[in-house]
């Protein structure tokens, strides 16, 4: 299936861009008119992935975060990419409550939130090269509206 629309965004790894990225994703997805709950799910998942790129990928230093969004008739695929530190053990990183930064008051719930708010979450990472998080969600409400 080919996407009906596509956007690519690049921004520097500043925490104020977390809100920017999730608002862009929500505005883009709004074109196919999902319901408010589905939109909120996308916003939250994007916020998690982008925050991870900034805090863990670049460890609050300078870097570029990329976000690619592909829109389908009733679904979206969002990919968040950093060229930062990378993840040594992806399986461990995805465990609920696992965090490598407890001293920074992280709770280790980011991947768990992404997994429960999106249908699919794929993590590709290489130490020293960076991390790619690809998320997919189908909007049950789209195409099923009454009338």
């Amino acid at each position, binding site marked *: 299936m080919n996407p009906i629309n596509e956007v690519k965004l690049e921004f520097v790894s500043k925490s104020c861009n977390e809100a920017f990225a999730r608002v862009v994703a929500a505005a883009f997805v709004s074109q196919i008119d999902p319901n408010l709950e589905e939109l*909120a799910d996308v916003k939250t998942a994007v916020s998690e992935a982008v925050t991870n790129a900034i805090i863990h990928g670049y460890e609050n230093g300078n870097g570029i975060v990329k976000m690619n969004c592909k829109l389908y008739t009733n679904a979206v695929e969002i990919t968040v990419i950093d060229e930062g530190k990378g993840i040594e053990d992806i399986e461990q990183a995805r465990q609920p409550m696992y965090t490598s930064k407890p001293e920074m*008051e992280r709770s280790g719930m980011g991947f768990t939130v992404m997994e*429960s708010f999106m249908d699919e979450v794929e993590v590709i990472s290489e130490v020293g090269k960076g991390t790619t998080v690809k998320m997919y969600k189908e909007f049950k409400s789209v195409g099923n509206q009454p009338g």
Partner: protein
Amino acid sequence: MNLKLTNRGTTLIATIIGELDHHSAEHIIQKLDAEMMKSSTKNLIMDFSKVNFMDSSGIGVIIGRYKKIKSLNGKLSITGINDKIRRIFNLSGILKLMPAYENIDEAIKKM
């Protein structure tokens, strides 16, 4: 401004306003911790009724304040969580650590 602080007796009420993410959390933690360290504070109520977005950063903020208030032998209550935010609360299991109430008045009564 994304935090309103009020005192009722020895209870500090922290109303978080707007979006609670990694970006806003830093500011909220700074202001809240400074107020909590004042000798008049014993218990803490964190009110989420004016939060329109929260991600896992919010869970970190709550757990951090929970540990602080516990070390001062005080109690923490949560108020005003809507359905959207509740999903993140439920995923994290933090409501096993502290009570959640509809509103501030109820939380004060039960403190």
